């Protein structure tokens, strides 16, 4: 049986949900090896958290160059592993870091690349949703090792617990991958809520909140949802940039997206319109966001959301 690489993805010091999603897709193609790139001495602890999904092997590569040089160092090491172990495909999480690693790996291994897949089949055909989710495309890499980045929250992960065999490998990192130096790194601030790209439900607030996100947050908490924001809200400093949904923020595709006080500019829609269900709360009946809503309430979010929050609490008790 052929062998597939996935680039293990971590949130803090734990494997994130996308790691199991990548493994689930990868297992359709072949036996899954999760590659873990870590600081010297940190690999075993990280690898121990790569324990969900159909993963048969974990390969740890340790080097302080990863933290010092970032994307180019990881890409170099991964490309060299691909050249020596010739996997049938490589699956990587589709976020800025993952796409840039994939980009460099594709160049270094002379391989075709597909980004933002929402599904991958046994013959490494990728499904993508393009043009704002209006068109489904199936594509296939025709040269080299298929390098495919997969959108978080698109594939239903097999979360059975795994006890993969753990090995260590070394991978060469060339001088050209060390040209940019990282002098400081600040991880994103994590709150108590679910991660935006992993959440089943996302509740977002826009300019209509007028800077007061309490109603949005309370409603989100009643649903166990993540909180997102439009660019108008992040630009005004009402909510951290890391919560921005849209073209220049995060792409989310939850079961349910609730847009509150958001007009629905095309750049916002680009990040949320493939959500399974969309609910809108907006006082302007003409707001374009209503065009893509399954359910819309024309009303003031400061009235509608507290009532909905109370309604949900009442149902729970």
């Amino acid at each position, binding site marked *: 049986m052929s062998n597939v690489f996935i680039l293990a993805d971590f949130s803090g010091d734990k494997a994130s949900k996308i790691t199991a999603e990548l493994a689930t897709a990868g297992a359709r193609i072949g036996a899954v090896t999760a590659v873990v790139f870590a600081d010297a001495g940190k690999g075993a602890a990280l690898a121990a958290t790569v324990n969900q999904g159909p993963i048969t092997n974990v390969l740890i590569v340790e080097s302080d160059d990863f933290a010092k040089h970032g994307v180019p160092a990881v890409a170099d090491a991964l490309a060299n592993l691909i050249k020596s172990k010739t996997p049938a495909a490589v699956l990587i999480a589709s976020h*800025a870091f993952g796409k840039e690693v994939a980009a460099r790996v594709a160049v270094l291994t002379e391989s075709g690349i597909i980004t933002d897949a929402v599904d991958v089949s046994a013959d490494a055909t990728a499904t993508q949703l393009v043009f704002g989710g209006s068109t489904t495309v199936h594509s296939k890499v025709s040269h080299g090792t298929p390098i495919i980045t997969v959108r978080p929250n698109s594939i239903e992960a097999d979360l059975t617990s795994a006890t993969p065999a753990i090995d260590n490998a070394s991978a060469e990192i060339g001088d050209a991958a060390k040209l940019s130096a990282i002098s400081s*790194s600040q991880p*994103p601030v994590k709150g108590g809520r679910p991660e935006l790209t992993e959440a089943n439900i996302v509740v977002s607030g826009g300019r209509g909140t007028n800077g007061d996100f309490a109603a949005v947050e309370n409603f989100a908490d009643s649903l166990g949802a993540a909180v997102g924001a439009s660019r108008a809200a992040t630009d005004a400093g009402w909510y951290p940039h890391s919560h921005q949904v849209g073209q220049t923020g995060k792409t989310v595709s939850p079961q349910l997206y609730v847009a509150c006080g958001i007009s629905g500019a095309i750049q916002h829609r680009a990040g949320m319109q493939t959500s399974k269900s969309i609910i809108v709360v907006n006082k302007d009946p003409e707001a374009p966001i209503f065009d893509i809503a399954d359910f819309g309430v*024309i009303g003031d979010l400061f009235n509608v959301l507290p009532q909905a929050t109370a309604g949900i609490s009442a149902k729970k008790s």
Partner: protein
Amino acid sequence: MKIAVCVKQVPDSWAEKKMVNGLLDRVNVDAVLNDLDEYAVEEALRIAEAHGGNEEGGANTVTVISMGPERATEAVRKALSMGANDAILITDTALAGADALATSAVLAKVIGDGGYDIVICGTESTDARMSVVPAMISARLGWGQLTFASKVTVDPAGKVSITRVTEAGVDEISAAFPCVISVVEKINEPRYPSFKGIMAAKKKTIEQRDLATVGISSQSAWSQVNDATPRPPRAAGVKVTDEGNGGQALVNFLAEKKLI
């Protein structure tokens, strides 16, 4: 300093897009300068202006580089009217259907031959939405990669420092010349071309090169679209006006759809 800016002409984001034979139909759709690339042009101009300007015969030049069909001159002209000095447009029928790998190969060759100190890109073209070309150019040229910058500081002696902002957090990164930068839209507010700028741009040179002039042979795309199917449009939703029980109606909808 010699600064290059990579800009792409893309279909207008509002335009309806279609696939023809597995490729985006670029002919029957309004085309504009990729709006994320305006931030790259603006940043290049600001860097030049902060270090002696880019007037003719001055210390710095800003060259616009684009690969695309001939009509991409419109987008290039817009960048020139913002204040860039000159432009190179790579146009060749053999490039129709180029993927990111082929695009980056062509751009890297032109950039490498041009003797630039820094090249600035947008973070994403709004049509393909891949965010891969800057990293590919960096890998091909063996230049430092400084991408997703929300702040760029240039020391004309030969060093660039950026603040990188992504979902993975905030990093401070630096590299020596020559290097590849991409900028996020939070970095600046692109200027509107002035009347004077628009007039001046008409006289600026857009050098057209085909693949033979670039000195690279065309590479076919390394991934193919098998099929493209329009998805059924979203069924028209339910819209209610809040008359005191809109919140409850919302909860009822959630319950009905088994979302709670």
